[in-house]
């Protein structure tokens, strides 16, 4: 018995007053309670499932799903398996999350900076926006955007913006690019451009370090890469007679647009709702992050002759970033989790696909298990990535 030695050695303290023993005892009791409770739930579940002959079984994952999915980033037809449908659900959730996170960050930074602007009007509008949006439930906002999108004209009477962009109640149809016959050759040019850009970037960084002076490397590198790609674009047009990329102008067919890309209203409403809602919180994080940077830093930067833009970019923001990363992580996770509200507005995310699957197969427990594990792993991976990034920028300080 592991508890025996301490009570022997310290004979003065009776065992029931020895905090170490009590602690161990309490924990054992607690463990028994928890395990017992979980066992109780588990055995009830298994008994119920056995009685109705519904024991968990994962073979359905390789059965054909048979249900349509309205949009998916990779090809799908109802003949694919449930497992494949799940993957589409996960991809859709990730697609919404990634796009949402990027847009919400951009909007959030704009709001955060606007709230500190010296322009009274801009500051007030940003404050008004924050106070309006964050006090109304996200689901209500999603309903609003969804019904709002239905108020657009029908596809036959789309709002036509210059023949390149159409607005209608099924979404937004945009003119997009279509790859031409010389697209493959152009990829090589892009590769060369990218390589040249990287080399330039590294070379300049080395130069800065050697001269011990700060400077701008990335814009020049990007410019070089883009320039090479553009030159290749024109050379290919001359040599092969076709553009590597052609404009894909949408044309209204009987029921839908042919060509271009269409962002569906369900997707757009979901992104709109998530971005507008999350940006408020990100804006507040940005604002308090900037405010938290010591005032002396700003003054010192001014004294060194940096412009306000340079001060913000080179002095304030890098320091604010360090404060901002942890709360930002939880906002990104919130956005990902909130994307499960897609189920209410008809976007086939993970939760919605899972709902259909458990309805068709009756395998409630395995399906919910898969859903929970998927969200958990997305959350954990995001946390890990952000923690890693957090560590990295914290090191910059030293």
């Amino acid at each position: 018995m592991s508890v025996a030695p301490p009570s022997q050695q310290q004979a003065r303290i009776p065992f029931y007053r020895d905090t170490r023993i009590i602690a161990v005892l309490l924990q054992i009791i607690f463990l028994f309670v928890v395990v017992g409770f979980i066992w109780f739930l588990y055995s009830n579940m298994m008994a119920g499932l056995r009685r109705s002959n519904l024991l968990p079984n994962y073979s359905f994952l390789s059965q054909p799903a048979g249900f349509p999915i309205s949009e998916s980033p990779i090809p799908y037809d109802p003949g694919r398996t449930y497992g494949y449908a799940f993957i589409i659900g996960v991809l859709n959730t990730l697609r919404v999350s990634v796009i949402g996170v990027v847009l919400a960050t951009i909007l959030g930074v704009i709001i955060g900076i606007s709230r500190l602007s010296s322009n009274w009007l801009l500051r007030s509008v940003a404050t008004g926006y924050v106070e309006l949006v964050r006090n109304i439930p996200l689901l209500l906002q999603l309903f609003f955007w969804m019904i709002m999108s239905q108020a657009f004209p029908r596809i036959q009477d789309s709002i036509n913006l210059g023949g390149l962009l159409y607005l209608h109640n099924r979404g937004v149809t945009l003119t997009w690019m279509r790859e031409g016959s010389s697209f493959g050759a152009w990829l090589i040019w892009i590769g060369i451009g990218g390589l040249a850009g990287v080399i330039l970037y590294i070379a300049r960084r080395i130069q800065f370090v050697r001269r011990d002076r700060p400077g701008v490397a990335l814009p020049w590198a990007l410019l070089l890469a883009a320039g090479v790609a553009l030159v290749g674009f024109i050379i290919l047009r001359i040599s092969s007679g076709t553009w590597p990329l052609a404009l894909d102008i949408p044309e209204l067919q009987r029921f839908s647009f042919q060509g271009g890309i269409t962002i569906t209203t369900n997707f757009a409403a979901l992104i709109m709702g998530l971005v507008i809602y999350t940006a408020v919180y990100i804006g507040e994080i940005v604002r308090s992050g900037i405010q938290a940077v010591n005032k002396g830093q700003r003054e010192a930067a001014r004294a060194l002759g940096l412009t306000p833009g340079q001060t913000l970019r080179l002095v304030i923001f890098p320091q604010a970033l360090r404060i901002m990363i942890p709360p930002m992580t939880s906002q990104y996770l919130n956005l990902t989790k909130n994307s499960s509200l897609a189920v209410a507005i008809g976007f086939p995310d993970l939760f919605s696909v899972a709902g259909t699957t458990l309805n068709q197969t009756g395998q409630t427990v395995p399906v919910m298990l898969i859903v929970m594990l998927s969200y958990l792993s997305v959350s954990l991976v995001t946390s890990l990535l952000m923690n890693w990034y957090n560590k990295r920028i914290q090191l910059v300080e030293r």
Partner: protein
Amino acid sequence: MRRQVLPALATALALALTACGGQTPQAANTPAPATSAPAAVADTAAPATQAPAASPAAQPSPGGRIQTIISRGNLICGVNSVLPGFGNVDSTGNFSGFDVEFCRAIAAALFDDPTKVEFRPLNAQERFTALQSGEVDVLSRNTTATLTRDGSVGLDFAPVTFYDGQGMMVRKDSGIESLEDMEGARICVQSGTTTELNLADQFRSRNINFEAVIFQEADPTFQAYDSGQCDGFTTDKSGLVSYQTKATNPDDHMILDVTMSKEPLAPAVLQGDAQWADAVRWVVYATIEAEELGITSANIGDFAATEDPNIRRFLGVEGELGAGIGLPNDFAARVIKHVGNYQEIYNRNLGPDTPFNLPRGLNTLYTEGGLLYSPPFR
């Protein structure tokens, strides 16, 4: 000595606590029969025993569901709340509709009181989970009987109460005359339904491309179609008739003259409880048999003194028909007295005097060329 006592004490405490943990929800929440508590304690207090040893205790005797319902004092019925004619909530909060009436009929058979039923609105996607977990006792929610649902989804279907078929609603001005005209069309459909699957099958077999827009709830699905986000809206034909009345301009829409599938709608219970399934089955048959015998809620009193042994058995005046399926012997009489026969139920909710005015079609007695046929009550 002390050291010996300690672990024993700890274990005893833990066991006591565990048992309490298991019991609290019961004590707090149910007028459950006292017999269930020891079972739960036995189940939890012996975590070390293997599952087979524990499960017989948790398994109720056959007919457990009926016992549960009776001791609870009301029936919990999963219904639709947004499909006028079949299951709908009016602004005062009362449920009405064809499927809802069958819930009341079952409650009448069990309690001699059609109001002893709690309606649990469910959407198409939730309904089977709710039945599987025991959240509802019976599902009467325009559910199509299929093999998969009977088998792997774990349902047991009662007799079909409504023979339906899947249809397609389109706008009149869209120029769509048949499914073949719908190449490339966008179609609104509700998830978790057979229509969702049939849609895919039908269009695949005809080699027509389409884009499905899938909503979880029925109302948003139709709203999306009504606002023009979809070119077509598909569900059971009876549902289409009901929804057309909800459209902004009902005259702008039409239902294509094509039946995409067979949709026999039936109440369902969870499989594995044969007695409860029998009870529901024979309540449904009772409404059909009553129509065949010409017994209605209005004239049932006239049959009290009848000499016809068939009717006497049916109404429970003689014989022990109900006992075999866990119901009182006069269950059929209770159903008819409180709810009525099939014809009454149909006419009240879907018949000529309602906005839907659905012709009975296949839903007439076999004697009139329909499919309604009750096995004999003997």
